[in-house]
């Protein structure tokens, strides 16, 4: 079966070009970049070249880029590292209620360690109001962290405005841009960010590698302590093949981004338009300010996991904000934050596209999805109850 992959917000395959660049660094050029012998020196050259590529993609300076093991580590580092480094200035952090768990659970941990966190609400489209950010600032605020693009509903946040507010108050601003890289143009200066997290596997780079951008002068404690790697700020033998892969992947992902996005947006909009023709469905997230590749719809009277499994049997990989996919009883905190009732949130479907998807993929999804929905509804007691109520 020719499988269709529409879970690119979850992870993406490493592109063959990227893998090809990585391969020499497993074998021939495997050196420890911190060693002084020539095996180590060759490694260092590749490392710094990759750092320059990541910096270029963000409009940053190479010495502002630190490699990490992924988006989660970058987020943990930015939050805990700032919190502890600026503890003398205050203990208040501002974030949003729809951040990724790598931010939210880190905030919860910080709350157990003496910090106070404001979780800003979002509107029905998942947007943070910059005015709310400004209102939440106190003289104890030491950090603001808002994501660039939501991983579930794809909503883009007004990052440059929020950054401007943060800076007007002299507060460092962190942005989780894990979903934004390769999807929308990212520039740390235009965005007024002081720290920015990214993760390689979200844009056809390798897994287990990410980066944290840290603007020169930003106070930040180390998170992983140990050796003097990454100029003493992030310990651990450098993961050279993955670092080289990240450099290559981010270069490819940020090339011709407008053109690529346009093509992806066309597929996205065709999916949305046609899925919404199924009765009792709704689009989640902002209609315009959304990731080019993100489709998130709630399909009433059916449950997300069952839908995913049926799609999977039909050769389509997707994801859901259903509780059942996570093992908890509550559905996605993001869907609840935009005001969906639980029973509707349970029936959500996320299709996330990359530039590897084709119009034929879209055709196929649109061909099989309505039948699956109909079938699942036909076995749903909620659908029954709804129909008989409407017939009365």
């Amino acid at each position: 079966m020719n499988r269709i992959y529409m879970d690119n917000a979850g992870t993406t395959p490493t592109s063959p070009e990227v893998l090809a660049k990585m391969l020499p660094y497993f074998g021939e050029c495997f050196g420890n970049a911190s060693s002084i012998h020539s095996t180590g020196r060759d490694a260092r050259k590749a490392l710094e070249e990759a750092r320059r590529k990541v910096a270029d993609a963000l409009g940053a300076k190479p010495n502002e880029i630190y490699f990490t093991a992924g988006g989660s580590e970058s987020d943990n580092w930015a939050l805990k590292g700032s919190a502890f480094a600026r503890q003398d200035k205050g203990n208040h952090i501002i974030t949003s209620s729809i951040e990724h768990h790598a931010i939210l659970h880190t905030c919860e941990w910080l709350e157990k360690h003496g910090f106070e966190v404001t979780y800003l609400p979002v509107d029905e489209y998942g947007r943070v109001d910059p005015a709310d950010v400004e209102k939440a600032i106190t003289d104890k605020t030491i950090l603001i962290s808002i994501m660039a693009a939501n991983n579930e509903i794809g909503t883009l946040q007004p990052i440059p405005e929020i950054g401007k507010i943060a800076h007007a108050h002299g507060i460092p601003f962190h942005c989780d841009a894990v979903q934004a890289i390769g999807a929308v143009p990212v520039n740390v200066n235009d965005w007024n960010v002081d720290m920015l997290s990214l993760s390689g596997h979200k844009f056809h780079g390798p897994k287990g590698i990410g980066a944290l951008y840290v603007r020169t002068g930003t106070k930040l404690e180390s998170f992983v302590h140990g050796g003097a790697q990454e100029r003493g700020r992030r310990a651990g033998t450098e993961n050279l093949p993955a670092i080289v892969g990240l450099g290559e992947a981010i270069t490819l992902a940020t090339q011709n981004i407008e053109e690529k996005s346009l093509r992806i947006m066309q597929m996205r909009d065709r999916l949305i338009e046609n899925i919404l023709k199924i009765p009792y469905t709704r689009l989640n997230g902002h209609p315009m300010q959304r990731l080019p590749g993100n489709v998130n719809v709630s399909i009433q009277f059916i449950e997300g996991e069952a839908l995913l499994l049926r799609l999977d049997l039909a050769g389509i990989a997707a994801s859901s904000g259903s509780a059942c996919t996570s093992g908890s009883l509550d559905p996605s905190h993001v869907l609840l934050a935009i005001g969906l009732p639980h029973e509707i949130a349970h029936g959500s479907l996320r299709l996330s596209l990359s530039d590897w998807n084709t119009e034929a993929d879209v055709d196929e999804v649109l061909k099989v999805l309505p039948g699956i929905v109909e079938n699942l509804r036909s076995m749903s007691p909620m659908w029954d109850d709804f129909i008989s109520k409407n017939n009365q």
Partner: protein
Amino acid sequence: MYSEKVMDHFSNPRNVGEIPDANGVGTVGNAKCGDIMRMYLKVEDGIIQDVKFKTFGCGAAIATSSMATEMVKGKSLKDALALTNKAVAEALDGLPPVKMHCSLLAEEAIHAAVEDYIKNNPEEAKKAGIEL
């Protein structure tokens, strides 16, 4: 994550539907938690002649509903009341720990339908040696 048996019962659920002249119906779960199961029974002479279900829920919810109906079909009311979630899960070659609550729901749905029958047909139930 799911066993082949679970996937089989999920993709080809047995006994989906309604029984128009059911004499025992039970609904458990709630939409807020993401699972609702409704069981329809046709009981004659203390024996479950027919059983059907409708379920809103995840793969495990659908598979356990299907398996539970298979397990009580043709059985006595007593046997149906003795059905346990563990037995349902085992018949499916196991369930992931986070999905065990689905098998519990299936057990409860069957029990609720049987109890509904008993409430509506206390005389018949007594004949079958069952009282609530």
